């Protein structure tokens, strides 16, 4: 029997999720599912740089907001189809990633982390002062009329995000298995040694930042239509920053499936907690889980699973 290639599974999963979205009658599940998928994109995108190469990006919210506000600008100009907004968001976000990465990644990784953190704050300042997109007052984004073939516009957004999630996961997987992934892993383990062995470290890091930023920007592009009212505080919410770090860390950063596991798990917990308890407390849960996982299970759920398998393997070998 030939081995089934692992890229099949995300596609199968996506197909099943799509069918499920058509079967459920309560549209709230589709509405909530969108957020989960959005986090799958963000976590997978973060992991391309953060997990594979070990460079921490605190500014996921900045890239996400670039996508969201990009859509707002386009919406005010001439309301292009959503797919085009997503594409342009990806381009702009990757350019921002390029500049930030090029200026800071030549130095120690810490500087990159701090710069991304500051990037989010500064972009928020810019948007706050930009009256065209509503400034601090925010912007009401009218959903276009329903798209043919979809029960509602939320369903359409859900499918768009599903496709984005699939793309993000497949890209993350492809990078992991290619020479880029190996190069990034070498950087994570010992950057100096990698450099000496001829790994083009700076180029790989900048590339990873661009891809990662582009995916985050693309995840943000449909957001204004989803939420219908966008203000700087929701677009730059620190929740994106902490979630896109916590999810890969909890799922496991060294495997492409880790961020997906972490995202689905954490996003579901948060959806339930927001409805049943309070939204402040659910951030507390994320923070607590993050701290406990990095101290107790540094390789996340995937790491725990591998540990278990190895132990079973050893027992069987005896």
């Amino acid at each position, binding site marked *: 029997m030939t081995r089934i290639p692992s890229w099949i599974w995300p596609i199968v999963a996506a197909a099943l999720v799509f069918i499920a979205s058509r079967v459920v009658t309560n549209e709230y599940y589709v509405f909530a599912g969108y957020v989960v998928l959005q986090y799958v994109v963000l976590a997978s995108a973060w992991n391309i740089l*953060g997990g594979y190469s*070990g460079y*921490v990006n*605190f500014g996921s919210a900045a890239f996400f907001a670039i996508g969201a506000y990009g859509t707002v600008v386009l919406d005010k100009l001439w309301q292009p189809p959503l797919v085009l907004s997503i594409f342009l968001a990806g381009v702009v976000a990757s350019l921002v990633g390029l500049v930030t990465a090029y*200026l*800071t990644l030549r*130095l120690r*990784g*810490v*500087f990159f*982390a*701090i*710069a991304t*953190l*500051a*990037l989010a*704050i*500064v972009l*928020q*300042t*810019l948007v*706050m*002062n930009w009256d065209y997109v509503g400034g601090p007052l925010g912007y009401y984004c009218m959903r276009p009329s329903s798209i043919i073939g979809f029960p509602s516009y939320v369903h359409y957004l859900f499918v768009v995000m599903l496709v984005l999630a699939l793309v993000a996961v497949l890209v993350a997987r492809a990078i992991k298995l290619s020479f880029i992934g190996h190069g990034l892993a070498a950087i994570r383990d010992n950057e100096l040694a990698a450099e000496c062995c001829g790994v083009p470290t700076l180029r790989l890091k900048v590339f990873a930042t661009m891809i990662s930023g582009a995916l985050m920007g693309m995840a943000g592009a449909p957001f204004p239509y989803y939420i219908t009212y966008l203000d700087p505080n929701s677009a730059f919410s*620190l929740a994106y*920053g*902490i979630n896109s*770090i*916590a999810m890969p*860390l909890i799922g496991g950063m060294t495997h492409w499936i880790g961020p997906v596991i972490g995202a689905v798990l954490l996003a579901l917990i948060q959806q339930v907690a927001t409805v049943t308890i309070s939204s*402040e*407390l659910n*951030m*507390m849960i*994320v*923070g*607590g889980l*993050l*701290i406990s996982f*990095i*101290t107790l299970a*540094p390789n996340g759920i995937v790491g725990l699973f591998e540990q278990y398998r190895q132990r079973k393997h050893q027992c069987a070998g005896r």
Partner: protein
Amino acid sequence: MVTFNLLFNAVVTGVLLGGFYAAVTVGITIAFGMLDIVNIAHPVFIIMGSFVAYIVNRKLGLDPLLSVILGAPLFFLVGVAIFQFYHAAFEKSGKGSLRGLAFFFGILFVIEVTLLLAFGVDYRLVQTSYIGPNIGFEHIDLPLRMVIPFVGSMALVTGLHLFFSRTFIGRAIMAVAQDEFALSLMAVDTVTVRQLAFGVAIATAAIAGGFLIVIQPVDPSLGREYIGRVFAICVLGGLGSIPGTVIAALILGIVETITSTLFGASWAPAVSFAALLLTLAIRPSGIMGR
């Protein structure tokens, strides 16, 4: 029309603000510059310090600046405990930086949400005799609520500078910052030295927090505004140099107030990011860097 008088006022206010920024940053200078611990939760510790001052002021009626002097030893112990945990969990196993960073990010969140749950999103302020009045000279008005924190901050950084250059423990900390391995070969318990230093760093947050709540009302998420600022100052000053931190803080304070005067207060946060990127691009070792 921006007159000379207005600009002069902005510079003076900038100096006062910059002096306060020095007190805010000095904890990062110690933790990040000297000990190589990227404590991005430092600003939120400062907010915690502000809330300690707020509680003591409201419940006991003590002066906020007096209350933080009481709070500092408590924060020192908190710092010592956090270092103990951090060291055992991350440094010993040798995979510090990334996980350590995420760890402090988690701490930042937990503290901020705890404050949010305890105090709500309202701005809190303290009441003292020196918050209202100004002292005026010929053309400039100096609000006392800025002057007092400035004087206090200068006292704090001067004290720390003397501590690091004159006392035995301070010099030991500087030695750890320079070459920890060499020091460990001389039978010095470097972990304890670093632990003390981290305690001192967190203790400064208590004091800076007291100054902060005198200068402006405080809410739990205020710390975020300071994250970019403190690291920009720390990097600009040259990582681990206290005189450098003071110079960089004054520069940033002046540039920020001039920016606010010319373009409006909402642009001020962008200054620190520009300063950070410029420093990293032009002179990554900072003003007083080696």
